[in-house]
């Protein structure tokens, strides 16, 4: 048993370490191609992120959104579904939060307005998750294609809603500010974070991590969800309603991603802006993958990717910030490649019908 545990740890840690190493080497090459010294650039990246309170605040802000989208993808993967739709779920959540916020009377107490807007964000995301969920559960449509296609549909709809319906402030692609339901910035409590976007949503993210972990690993629903993801036929035989689990996993994932929209809309800008999602949903895939579909792993991975993306801004004077996009891709690819490879090396003996990632198309 001890051997099995250590193997599980190796299985969890080795691919990540490999990926980091590969990314480091690739980053060196990119930096060198730009005629800069790698050591210098990496140092700048660290000092611009974890080196000062503003940097830390920005990393925390970016990580907050990534925690939500990462959890969304991880919950899907635990149920055996690949949710590529976190991007549009995030956007829809943000839109619904802002829309409700605009409808609420301006004098409303934040103690009521904020929870209502959060609920709206969850509902918006859940609705976008529900569609591929139902297509999968009811029609057997593959969720990867469905979520990708739905991303385009939802983002186009939101773009239309903001640009063609007079919802936006003229000459912009964002709504007027939502005054009543703004989540306070971290700087309101810790002045040292002044100027950074980090806000109270961070607590919500930590709660989401804890609740997801409890739900996945302690609750009966999580037991059934993971069984469905690992061995759907066995789950079916055990009386678990597999299509229902699929649907609930997509709805839940959508709701979590939607909640992430509040970080920008309620916590940072106080308005919905077309395109605020900016790839955070897709990066959620990377976060879930590197976090190995474990909520606490997702938290760490979100911090890592947030550091990268904030670090990109810090090094922009020396090397184009786009370098970090390349590195993100490399980390994902390296983890994807090394997970089955490490598992193969650890599992010398052939396991019957070994499945690698809980994903098929």
């Amino acid at each position, binding site marked *: 048993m001890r051997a099995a545990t250590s193997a599980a740890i190796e299985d969890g840690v080795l691919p990540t370490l490999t990926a980091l190493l590969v990314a480091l080497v690739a980053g060196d090459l*990119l930096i060198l*191609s*730009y005629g800069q010294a790698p050591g210098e650039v990496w140092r700048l990246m660290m000092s611009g992120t974890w080196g000062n309170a503003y940097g830390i605040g920005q990393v925390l802000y970016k990580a907050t959104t990534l925690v939500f989208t990462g959890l969304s993808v991880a919950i899907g993967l635990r149920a055996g579904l*690949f949710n*590529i739709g976190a991007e549009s779920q995030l956007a829809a959540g943000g839109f619904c939060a802002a829309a409700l916020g605009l409808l609420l009377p301006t004098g409303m107490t934040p103690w009521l307005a904020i929870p209502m807007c959060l609920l709206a964000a969850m509902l918006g995301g859940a609705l976008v998750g529900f*569609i591929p969920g139902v*297509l999968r559960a*009811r*029609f*057997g*449509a*593959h969720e*990867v*294609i*469905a979520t*990708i*296609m*739905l991303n*385009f*549909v939802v983002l*186009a*709809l939101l*773009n*239309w809603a903001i640009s*063609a319906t007079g919802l936006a402030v003229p000459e912009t692609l964002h709504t007027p500010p939502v005054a009543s339901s703004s989540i306070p910035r971290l700087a309101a409590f810790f002045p040292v974070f002044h100027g950074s976007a980090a806000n109270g949503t961070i607590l919500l993210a930590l709660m989401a991590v804890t609740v997801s972990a409890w739900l996945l690993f302690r609750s009966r629903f999580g037991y059934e969800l993971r069984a469905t993801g690992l061995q759907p036929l066995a789950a079916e035989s055990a009386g678990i309603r597999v299509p229902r689990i699929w649907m609930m996993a997509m709805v839940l994932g959508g709701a979590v991603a939607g909640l992430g929209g509040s970080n920008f809309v309620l916590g940072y800008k106080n308005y919905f802006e077309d395109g605020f999602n900016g790839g955070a949903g*897709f990066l959620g*895939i*990377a976060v879930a*993958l590197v976090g190995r579909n474990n909520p606490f792993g997702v938290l760490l991975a979100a911090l890592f990717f947030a550091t990268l993306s904030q670090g990109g801004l810090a090094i922009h004077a020396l090397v*184009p910030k*786009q*370098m*970090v*996009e*390349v*590195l*993100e*891709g*490399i980390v*994902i*690819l390296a*983890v*994807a*490649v*090394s*997970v*089955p*490879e490490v598992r193969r090396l650890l599992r010398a003996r052939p396991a019957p019908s070994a*499945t*690698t*990632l809980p*994903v*098929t*198309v």
Partner: protein
Amino acid sequence: MKLTLLLMLQTLRIAIPYLFAASGGVLAERAGIVSLTLEGFMLAGAFCATLGSFYFGNPWAGVLMGLLGGCLFGALHAVATIRFKADQIVSAVAINLMVVGLTRFFLRLAFDSSSNSPRVAGFGRDGNAGALATFENPLIWLGVIVMPALAWVITRTRFGLRVRAVGEKPEAAATLGVSVSRIRYRAVIASGALAALGGCYLALDQHQFTDQMTAGRGFIALAAVIVGRWMPIRAGIACLLFAFAEAMQIQVQGAGVLPSQFVSMIPYVLTLVALAGLVGRAVPPAALGRVEG
């Protein structure tokens, strides 16, 4: 009459990149490898074509470079998913992300711009020449025949027969001494090249590269593959259909018939409908996306 002709030509121009990319998608998916990578392949093709045309001053050098770029990323996807058995979807997501980053990075490095390259030698006359100038771009002709050619390859040639076998039941092919990996490598690399041609067409038609210039066309091509049920001719028709909708939208722009956002949704909504089996079930190749061994 003139309007109809214009509409048809416009449809064709819009359809060409879809046709190239969708042909790559059909080929790779029929061999059992998921083609979420088309977007990345196209973008890589467009960027490399611009680089080639820029440095050699010849659009054909651009095409060659674009093909090389597509092959390179096709090979990367192939090695990750075939040799290392990485999850195909994850690999595709990574490659798409990586290509966006790389093109932006090298856009800065090569042209010191964050948005676009300078003008380069391309096909066809610059700017808005007459409708018939469409045909001055030789890639148009290639684009028109790519789907029929692929149909011929898949149904008539030995390679096509093996691709179909490998995508449906790889273990059967393997027991007959057909190397599943080799067929898949070829199919995925070729799909990279084909999709990259779509990117070449875009860049050389516009005589420059702009950031993220493929703008989701790779996913529209994938939609065409699914709506076309993995059959080249049907996928080609789907491409033309999607392009026609866009051309219509451009023609009636301002008429306020339908917001442009709704027109742009058509391919995706159709795909969702096809996936749900509302207009005949879309059954993918049996081994699509499966990790072997």
